[in-house]
């Protein structure tokens, strides 16, 4: 459930009517989550609430977007909501994995919150295993999109204008029966579930994903966030857009501590 930071008084900070909800799927390489970190850090978004749930593994730490001594002592938990009213953007960041058997309850809670807070649409940033691509997918761009029928009606041919590639469906029974096609997003976590649930509930949702593998996923995060920027225009896109995104301070030491001098 959504719990606002500021209790009582104006609920202005938790009025998301007409906003776009941007959120990550906990997926291969954590690319969606890294991309969201870039968005929150670059746009200097304000934390407006927590998503209190029993579906995610608990974790706490000090402010991951700290820029100075003063703002480094605010506690952050595993699921928080940030907003930027000037761009009608609300962002949910998820920082830990799902607890076993909790995928479906989380999707249900999330989608009912989307409906009750009257968000206009949801954009899910995700990723999928690069090794599962077929021959055709190995060529060209590794970025894909998916949109629910309700969003298709709203944004029309925008995806064609942007020259984006839709996520291909795969055969349900490869080798045996190639005519029946289904959506398959290996390594995408809750992506497929959220997408199919949104389709059936009439929610306007778009999924933006990148094919990638586990490793140093920072370049993948930049690629995904630039892809998102082509549509939402969150920051001015110039020739070298990767330098426009601000890396948060919590990305330090992603690959471990310093080495012991005695090693050498």
């Amino acid at each position, binding site marked *: 459930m959504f*719990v606002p930071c500021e*209790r009582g008084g104006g609920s202005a900070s938790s009025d998301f009517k007409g906003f776009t909800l941007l959120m990550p799927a906990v997926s291969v390489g954590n690319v969606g989550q890294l991309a969201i970190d870039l968005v929150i850090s670059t746009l200097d978004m304000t934390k407006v609430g*927590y998503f*209190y749930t*029993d579906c995610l*593994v*608990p*974790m*706490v*730490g*000090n*402010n*991951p977007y*700290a820029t100075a001594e003063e703002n*480094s*002592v*605010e*506690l952050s*938990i*595993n699921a928080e909501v940030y907003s930027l009213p000037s761009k009608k953007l609300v962002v949910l960041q998820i920082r830990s994995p799902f*607890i*076993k058997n909790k995928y479906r309850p989380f999707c249900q809670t999330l989608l009912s919150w989307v409906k009750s807070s009257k968000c206009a649409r949801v954009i899910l940033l995700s990723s999928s295993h690069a090794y599962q691509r077929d021959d055709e997918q190995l060529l060209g761009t590794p970025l894909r999109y998916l949109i629910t029928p309700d969003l298709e009606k709203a944004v029309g041919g925008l995806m064609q204008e942007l020259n984006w590639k839709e996520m291909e469906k795969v055969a349900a029974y490869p080798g045996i029966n190639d005519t029946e096609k289904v959506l398959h997003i290996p390594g995408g976590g809750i992506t497929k579930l959220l997408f199919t649930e949104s389709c059936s509930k009439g929610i306007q949702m778009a999924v933006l994903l990148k094919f990638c593998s586990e490793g140093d996923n920072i370049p993948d995060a930049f690629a995904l966030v630039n892809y998102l920027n082509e549509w939402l225009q969150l920051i001015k896109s110039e020739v070298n857009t990767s330098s426009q995104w601000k890396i948060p*301070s*919590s*990305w*330090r*030491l*992603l690959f*471990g*501590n*310093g*080495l*012991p*001098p*005695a090693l050498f």
Partner: protein
Amino acid sequence: REIDVLWTLKSGASTESSADEPFVCSKFIVAIGHNAVAFLSSFILDSVCWEVVGVVKLWNEWCRTSNTTNVLPTDSFCLFYRLISDPTVLLCQCSCYVAEDQQFQWLEKVFGCMRKEGLQVTILSTCPVADYKTQESTLTLPSPFLKALKTKEFKEQVCCPLLEQPNIVRDLPAAVLSYCQVWQIPAVLYQCYTDVIKLDTVTIEAFKPLLSSKILKSLVKDVSESTKILKKLLTTSETHNNIYI
């Protein structure tokens, strides 16, 4: 995997957590892990000033809690004590591992029984120093050392430096602190980074700066008592370790 919290708040009668009215609690001190538990046993708890008021029954792949209240320091248990002279002071010794699918239940069943107005929470726990992320190597760090994390509402002094980014805290200590942050309860977590996994006096004594904190100052026992208990604690645990002697 259900966990059960059994309270014996009214003398004699044992009641299920759901049946009772929420009780008033001003201070809730939670020790998670063997060393934190041993610290409270040596420096705060005794059988004269404190009484057992609750027990948690759970099991998972790592442990099963014992049924008795007369526990050894190396057992797995989760007990609640109340200060007889001030029944709003509650203390929890949790030396069993609470699995990730049980942590939320623990929170709801324990905090569900208390009134949150005027509540202040203190959490003590330990963690391997190898998990500590820093620019230098952890080999050269003088461990054990204490780091703290506090919720927005906690306005008092902390007894040690705050935990720097990008370090995080997990498991039950994180669950309790998250709960307090979301529901605006002043709370502080003192995490001791140590390189010893078992019960160890050096790790236990690393918590000593907390004895001068506002929350624990009034609850500290006689120092000579503490050293006696510490010695006893370690001899009971060592008898299990002399297999090669």
